[in-house]
């Protein structure tokens, strides 16, 4: 399984490196959303500071939808799905590989957005350990859930519009958990945030397992 996961992850990351969609479209989109939030909420007032954790994770989720849609589209290309079915690659390995590639892209994006909220919103990253752990758990959760739902809608004509409609409500616990954990970290009371980080980790494990088990069936059905 891990060999196939490595093969698929390498392919998806190579495609991203060559196409530069994440670099030239997803990252600018994410930064633009951050800037628009700063315009909408007075950057000098307390509201923006209080809302920073929520705005950060909303931006991550919006950007994740784009990254997941792009990842799913790779396997929608001309005859690729049939070729994958004929390849004998382990479906669980394919799922893990695709989720790892999305997670790698999101991790880079989160670092970029982190720098953005420090510069634009004046956030003070105090409890770095909690922030990092929250990002890791949330990234795995978003990537695994997104990859699963990307496969679920693949083959449908309305997949571009259906994906965010299905995915964003399912990711609500990630938004809540990530926001609460970041609030605790930025408030200087990280002890309150670890339970939320645990929730994110449980969510990540649940959807990673579900995706690895269901991906083969979804590949056949699409």
């Amino acid at each position, binding site marked *: 399984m891990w060999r196939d996961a490595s*093969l698929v992850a390498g392919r998806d990351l190579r*495609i991203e490196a060559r*196409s530069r969609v994440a670099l030239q479209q997803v990252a600018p989109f994410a930064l633009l959303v951050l800037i628009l939030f700063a315009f909408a909420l007075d950057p000098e007032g307390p509201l923006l500071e209080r809302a920073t954790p929520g705005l950060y994770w909303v931006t991550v989720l919006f950007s994740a939808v784009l990254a997941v849609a792009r990842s799913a589209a790779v396997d929608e*290309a001309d*005859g*690729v799905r*049939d*070729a994958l079915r*004929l390849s*004998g690659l382990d479906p669980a390995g394919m799922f893990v590989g695709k989720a790892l590639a999305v997670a790698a892209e999101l991790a880079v994006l989160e670092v970029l957005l982190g720098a953005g909220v420090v510069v634009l919103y004046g956030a003070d990253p105090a409890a770095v350990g909690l922030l990092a752990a929250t990002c890791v758990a949330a990234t795995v959760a978003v990537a695994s859930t997104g990859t699963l739902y990307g496969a679920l809608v693949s083959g449908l004509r309305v997949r571009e519009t259906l994906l965010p409609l299905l995915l964003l409500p399912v990711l609500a616990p990630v938004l809540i958990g990530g926001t609460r954990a970041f609030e605790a970290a930025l408030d200087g009371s990280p002890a309150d945030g670890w339970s939320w980080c645990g929730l994110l980790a449980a969510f990540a494990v649940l959807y990673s397992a579900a995706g690895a088990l269901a991906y083969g069936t979804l590949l056949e059905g699409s």
Partner: protein
Amino acid sequence: MEPVVHLRDAVALLGRFPALAGIDLDVARGEIVLLRGPNGAGKTTVLRVCAGLVPVVRGQAVVLGHDLRHDARAVRRRVGMLGHATGLFDDLTVADNVTFWGRAHRAERGDVEAALGLVGLAGRLRGVPVARLSAGQRRRTSLACLLVRRPELWLLDEPHAGLDHEARDLLDRLVRQAVGQGATVVISSHELDRAEALADRVVTIDGGVTGGAEPAPRHAAGIERDVAADATPGVAPEVTHVA
């Protein structure tokens, strides 16, 4: 000897539509069979059934010794399909594509280089993204992806479409070489002159059922393939008249 493909009264659905209404087809090891018939007759569906991509809902379907109704996944790794779709990633180079599909089938780096060389893409074109290739060059790349997996059963859907004369000759030569090395080939084509020259037997399909089978004209005229020559890479196929 057990046939490589054995379909008996096979029925397959595309959605609720019966794409195959009772196909009978037997293909022996090392045989090249041409499926002939009008558009919509079910030729492509027969190939997809043989690949284990379309399930059979009634009748018998045994490919490479596996019952497709229960064990389609075991068949898939052992077949290679060249169809209308290329199965390529546009943003990756020719070499990247062949390497990916080769590694998926546990091929060695040498196998990838050999496949690229066989289809004439080992030079400058190997580093070109597939998106920049012509239709014929994409087809060659797909052929390299098929070669690198060394399939036991080749399923070729309109394989000559979009290829220039040189590439068509190359494809025919590679098919003959593969057969010389033990592969079995099922072709669906409307280019009957060329496909019949390649085939041992012609099977007519119409309306999702088998209309009949007959020796290819080449065989009817007493001409047989020289398998020994076909099996030697780089040697142009020869034909031999038998008494």
